[in-house]
């Protein structure tokens, strides 16, 4: 793909040079050198090297804060995604967080021969099947348990999701040979690895014969929904678990025990701005008796990113964004910060473990995935 192709695909030429993207960009506020607008403008005037050899190409969070409000409707995150592929062709990699472990893992998984022990987390109480029409896509949570030196909470969320599905009478298919969805590969420019992963997943899903896939990870959900169709066929209904829950609650209601919490909800970029899902998680929270939901200054469409995506380029700027977000959460007076993305949770928890070294402001707040909140409220009585 040439630079001109990228301009055409992302409609970069519609840029009004108005600067709204840059003004909205969470990165630009901390990194004055970083300007989405100038990045686009350079591309329009053919300065390709200024793009591919630019460290800041990897600073973008692809959070869509810019494009969702772009008056010219330029798809900047897509532009970045494609430009990173160009950069990779030129031998340029971004700095990846956690020493690139996540990326390496994904590349490893793209090798068809590799064998994994994917279901080791499955405990006795949780039921899965091989016959159901519904599949639950686990994603990378089983690996996250082992990568981070703090409790990522990722696998707990998977367990909670399964508990919820079971409670609703669903024993989903969970595939032992499922691979990383490829999200991080795609967004770091490694299209080839992404394609291999997509093809693998498409094949095993087809083989499983399921009709519907439920995700608790917004990245997997987005990738299946928006990116897979360009490479593979997935002939299934796709749903995020918050959508699933909102539907269930609207249809029959669910019997919840009281939740004495004051919570605030953090919209993950992939679920929110990428896919427009703002109301369902809030409806789910509102359905919990006794709970109080307070909104942060930036919520829904204006929600702030957690500061890192695709485990790329996690620097001081990312940390600052994260701290700001946690401070916003604390400012609401909530005792719990709810999110529905395992990665948001990881990044927030990471920020809190780091706080000692930086002697920054107190950002300690309980962070919990929406599914954990719901699963807890379902109580033991319902959990056979």
């Amino acid at each position, binding site marked *: 793909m040439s630079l001109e192709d990228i301009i055409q695909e992302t409609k970069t*030429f*519609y840029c009004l*040079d108005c600067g709204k993207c840059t003004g909205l960009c969470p990165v630009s506020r901390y990194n004055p050198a970083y300007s989405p*607008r*100038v990045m686009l*403008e*350079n591309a*329009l*005037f053919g300065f390709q090297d200024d793009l591919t050899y630019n460290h800041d190409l990897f600073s973008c969070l692809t959070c869509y804060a810019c494009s969702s409000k772009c008056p010219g409707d330029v798809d900047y995150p897509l532009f970045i995604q494609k430009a990173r592929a160009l950069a990779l062709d030129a031998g340029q990699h971004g700095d990846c967080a956690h020493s690139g472990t996540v990326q390496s893992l994904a590349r490893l998984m793209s090798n068809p021969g590799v064998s994994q022990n994917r279901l080791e987390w499955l405990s006795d109480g949780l039921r899965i099947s091989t016959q159901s029409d519904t599949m639950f896509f686990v994603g990378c949570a089983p690996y996250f348990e082992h990568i981070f030196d703090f409790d990522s909470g990722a696998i707990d969320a998977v367990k909670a999701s399964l508990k919820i599905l079971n409670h609703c009478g669903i024993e989903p298919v969970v595939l032992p040979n499922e691979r990383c969805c490829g999200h991080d590969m795609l967004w770091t420019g490694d299209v080839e690895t992404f394609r291999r992963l997509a093809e693998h997943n498409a094949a095993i899903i087809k083989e499983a014969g399921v009709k519907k896939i439920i995700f608790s990870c917004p990245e997997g959900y987005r990738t299946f929904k928006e990116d897979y169709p360009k490479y593979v066929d997935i002939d299934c209904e796709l749903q995020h678990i918050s959508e699933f829950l909102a539907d269930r609650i609207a249809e029959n209601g669910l019997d919840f025990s009281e939740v004495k919490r004051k919570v605030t909800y953090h919209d993950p970029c992939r679920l929110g701005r990428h896919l427009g899902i703002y109301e369902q998680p809030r409806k789910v929270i509102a359905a919990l008796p006794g709970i109080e939901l307070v909104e942060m200054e930036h919520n829904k469409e204006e929600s702030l990113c957690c500061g890192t995506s695709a485990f790329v380029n996690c620097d001081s700027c990312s940390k600052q964004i994260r701290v700001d977000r946690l401070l916003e959460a604390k400012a609401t007076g909530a005792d719990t910060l709810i999110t529905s993305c395992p990665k948001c949770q990881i990044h927030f928890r990471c920020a809190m473990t780091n706080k000692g070294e930086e002697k920054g402001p107190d950002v300690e707040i309980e962070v919990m995935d929406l599914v954990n909140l719901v699963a807890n409220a379902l109580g033991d009585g319902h959990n056979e």
Partner: protein
Amino acid sequence: MSEVRIGVFVCHCGSNIGGWLDVPEVAEYARSLPNVVFAQDNLYTCSEAGLSQIKNGIKEHNLNRVIVASCTPRTHEPLFKRVCQESGLNPSLFEFVNIREQCSWVHMQQREAATQKAKDLIRAGAAKASLLEPQEDIYVDVEPRALIIGGGIAGLTTALTIANVGFDVKLVEKEKELGGLLRHLYKLYPSNEEAAAVITPRIEAVRNHPRIEVFNDSTVRDVRGFVGNYDVIIASDGKEETIKTGVIIVATGAEELKPQGLYSYDGQKVITQMELEQLLADGNVSATKVAMILCAGARIPERTYCSRTCCMTAIKNAVLIKKQSPEAQVYILYRDLQTYGTEYEEYLRMSKEMGIRYIKYSLSNPPTVSDGGVKVYHELLGRELNLETDLVVLATPLVPHSDAKELAKKLKVPLEQNKFFLEAHVKLRPLDFATDGIYLCGCASWPTDVEQTIAQALGAASRALIPLTKGQVKVEPIVSSVDQDKCIGCGICEYLCPYKAIAVFPTDKGDRASTIVASCKGCGVCSSHCPMMAITMQNFNDDQITAQIAALAAV
């Protein structure tokens, strides 16, 4: 005449007056003036509420003079005079005192001084009002004919509209051919129609219209008369012809500035948009690396205005080049893009989609043109770009014709500072001149695109049709009158009157001057020059002015 009973209505004009001077105090003061029997303040005297207060005041206090102290008589006098008339008071017994443009708006930080000045002006107004006399309206017939100056799209459109309603039209064009600026254009934005296809049928329609007579190659030599009765002397082919007409429409257009000395303009490699139009029309554009520089000669200290049409012209021509050769690189160097409205903004978007690139430059760091290239600092990118070019096109502003000033003088209408014609009111009377019976449309007034020009031309036709269909117009009764007992028939007034509206006639007392009312425009030169002080200007007579002076001076 019975006792003088003056009512004074002092207007707050919202806060326009009330915010800067003490209106109630001024009204209170007015009440103390000689002959003033009633005074009140109103929030907006010109509102329905204010007007009915005037009516009530006249009725309840048996007023026989009304003073409104508010804004300028130049806009609101007719309204208040009408209200007086409706209340049975002769409108000439109304006096206007301007305490807004003359006081509150120009002495904003001097409340006391402004209040005092308002009192003084009202005192003078009351002094004059006491001496006002009722006048009867004067009506004159309108010659049922329109004369249009300029045969471009504006003039042609106006001519057709007026003729279609059923009036004779005389169309004067200084060039040999009709069509104006459009004759030099290739295609029009945003419709992409060929200019020729637009103008030619209209020229045909005008040529074939039984009610329209065209004077090609002709100029206006002189204009005399007044609304309804203009005599326009047309010079063509060395011959002169006088046309009697009721109304005159100025549709003389404008011309493209030739950018001599700007950006290495040479008419070859560096050309104007209109020169490019010609090349495009002839299919003679082979350039594939084109830079267009906007605001060439516009929005600079010596010509501050934005010519409104050049951005779209440039974009349209850029699109034409790009359509002709899709591989062409076209850059548009701009300062602020004027793609206002719906279609132009869409056109801009389309041009970007086609690959035309926009570069913003600033006046302090303008592009430089050299052989084969343009160097420009892209303000928004923060870097200098070296554009290789084989053609540079300058978008230059439309400027008034050099003879506009002369025509303005003949018509006795004003020009604004850039020498475009100045309308009666920039907001609400865009197609009228302050002089009755003369109208304007199109680029003569300001650079306008074709759509706007047509709208204005139709609009000017409407304005001109008012006196034409009415058949007569009212003349302000500000005319001179001669005291036949004092007059000695010296003829000085006849000599000085610019309108030949006063002349010496034999009478049984000997030669005496008298006024030709329909021709008199009320300037008062006769009155100030009469050796015998025998001439009175109605509504501006010596006694009234002297009373005003005395009242202003009284402390």
